[in-house]
């Protein structure tokens, strides 16, 4: 089946080539980081995690969000998602791979990474995160590939795959819950030490992931002959409406407890993020952009007219994704370190090499996504009809 990724239009190869060059630039920057040390990034003794771990955290959410498509389809027989389950699963695969790569580039001694397996440490949440992430990666490759293979032969998926599908559904939230536990179990980091962290992670994941699936579905429909289906996209729109509302509410709950209780330790990170602390406010503009985007997203999503219109829904999806990327991929991780345990403020901002490495990892993710989607879309274009006998390709290209 993979051979389908090796033939394509000129546009396909240009895109692959662009991604490869970004990967190349990122790799050169990584070589530089590898010899100089992580001091080449904006991270420091006080803000000891930055952009890389932020991207990791955000992408775990995107990966987990596949369940928002797979669950209604397999557990509630929501047929409209039949065509796009593979798109969701094939989005999870590069997302998890990016997560693992972001961990890898963040390590001071990356080639010792196998120590995590050689010296398994069940009391470390990081150990469990490695376990659930690799499990989830394998499950999604297995399920996505098998189901797509069956579709290609125009036969029902083999029976043995069913248990794996159900395990994958239960497994998906676990990757994000465990990732939240990396943060929410640490004493002395007030921004993170909150029981609602895992819930907030899930809400933001189930908003940002499906938002990305909407964007990708619209792109796929425009550039290929495969049509993911208007109704599927509309239902995803409803999903992100509710999950985005939940996400904004959860953030509001955090702000209330932090600010109303008047406990300095709980107030400081919020003050730093949204107003600046002791004259330091590098993240303030970003956080306000995130908040404004969240409001715009809610207006576009709650209003039925703009949600039903595919162009405004597309805008809403981009806005949701961007807002949550800033909030989780940047503010949440950095904000947890400011002020430091001695109540001093050291700021963080990513450097150019750090940004190039980050872009490189994203490009690897997009390359894998492109290859997998090329295979999936080619199969669907050939099969013409979906499982339920409906045409899944457009009439004219």
């Amino acid at each position, binding site marked *: 089946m993979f051979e389908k990724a090796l033939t394509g239009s000129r546009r396909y190869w240009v895109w692959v080539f662009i991604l490869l060059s970004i990967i190349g630039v990122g790799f050169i920057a990584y070589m530089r980081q590898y010899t100089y040390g992580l001091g080449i990034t904006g991270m*420091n003794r006080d803000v000891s995690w930055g952009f890389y771990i932020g991207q990791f955290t955000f992408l775990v959410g995107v990966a987990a969000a596949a369940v928002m498509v797979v669950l209604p389809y397999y557990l509630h027989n929501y047929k409209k998602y039949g065509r796009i389950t593979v798109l969701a699963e094939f989005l999870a695969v590069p997302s998890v791979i990016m997560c693992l790569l972001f961990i890898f580039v963040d390590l001071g*001694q990356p080639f*010792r990474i196998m*120590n995590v397996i050689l010296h398994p440490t069940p009391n470390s949440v990081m150990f469990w995160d490695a376990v659930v992430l690799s499990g989830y990666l394998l499950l999604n490759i297995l399920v996505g590939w098998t189901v797509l293979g069956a579709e290609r032969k125009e036969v029902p998926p083999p029976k043995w795959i069913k248990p794996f599908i159900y395990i994958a559904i239960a497994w998906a939230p676990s990757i994000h819950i465990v990732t939240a536990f990396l943060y929410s179990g*640490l*004493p002395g980091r007030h921004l993170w030490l909150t029981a609602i962290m895992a819930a907030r992670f899930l809400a933001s994941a189930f908003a940002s992931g499906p938002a990305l699936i909407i964007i990708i579905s619209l792109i796929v429909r425009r550039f290929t002959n495969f049509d993911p289906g208007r109704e599927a996209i509309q239902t995803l729109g409803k999903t992100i409406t509710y999950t985005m509302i939940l996400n904004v509410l959860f953030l509001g709950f955090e702000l209330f407890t932090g600010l109303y209780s008047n406990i300095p330790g709980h107030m400081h990170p919020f003050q730093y993020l949204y107003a600046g602390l002791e004259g330091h406010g590098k993240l303030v503009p970003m956080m306000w952009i995130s908040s404004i985007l969240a409001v715009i997203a809610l207006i576009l999503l709650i209003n039925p007219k703009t949600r039903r219109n595919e162009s405004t829904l597309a805008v809403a999806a981009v806005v949701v994704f961007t807002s949550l990327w800033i909030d989780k991929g940047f503010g949440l991780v950095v904000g947890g370190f400011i002020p430091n*345990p*001695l109540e001093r403020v050291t700021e963080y901002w990513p450097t150019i090499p750090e940004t190039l490495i980050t872009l490189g990892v994203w490009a690897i993710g997009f390359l894998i996504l492109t290859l997998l989607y090329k295979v999936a879309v080619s199969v669907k274009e050939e099969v013409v009809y979906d499982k339920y006998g409906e045409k899944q390709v457009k009439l004219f290209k």
Partner: protein
Amino acid sequence: MSINRREFLKIAGISTVAGIGAPWAINEILNRGVEAARVLPGLEALVAKRWAMVIDTRKFRTADDYKRVMDACHRIHNVPDIENPKHEVKWIWTDTFEHAFPGQEHKYMPEDIKHKPFLLLCNHCERPMCVRVCPTKATFKREDGIVMMDMHRCIGCRFCMAACPFGARSFNWRDPRPFIKEENKEFPTRMIGVVEKCTLCYERLAKGLKPACVEESNGGLIFGDLGDPNSEVRKILSSTYTIRRKPELGTEPSVYYIIGGNENV
């Protein structure tokens, strides 16, 4: 029984995996591997049930009192002198009261205490969060209470730095070796990308010597065994009011402070 090529490869693959994996798994189950935490004390070594330190801040008055102590530690442990505070490595350092004991300060406290530097170092907690979060057991607690670092096992994930509520851990953001003024050949230097911190001079204890900072402190730092009711630290703790950093977090620091200004010695 005939097998085709595909089946043969399958069986061969599974056998290879089993062949490599099984001895390792059996070994793991039988003797649980060798943990870095295993140490046997030598004959002359100082031993304790649980090491602890009392910092008598009244005895630190001049800048030199602090400098002597910090320099001794950093010199013998090859701690690099990196000026950029973002990349600095420090095992023992100072900060003012409001930063050393956040939340304990108030506007009307004595000026000399408000502005006085307090010595800070790893607290060698009884329930260390850094040890709990480390994914490779590169940081671990010895039976005598010392929270140790195995810099050869550390993968540099910095989870311990996020977990330590005392800011006691430093990461080697860049090669530390060019920043070591005079290398002590008796103690290893570190490489890029590993975390380090105070190890309570485990290497000196093994030779029967007290930690370097204690030795240089002129009685300002008192070191001893919490498990021994007759030890000096226990006598001080039962007779003098002492505080610890962030006791509310439940990590049970082993470093105690006698708070005093400059005049009331």
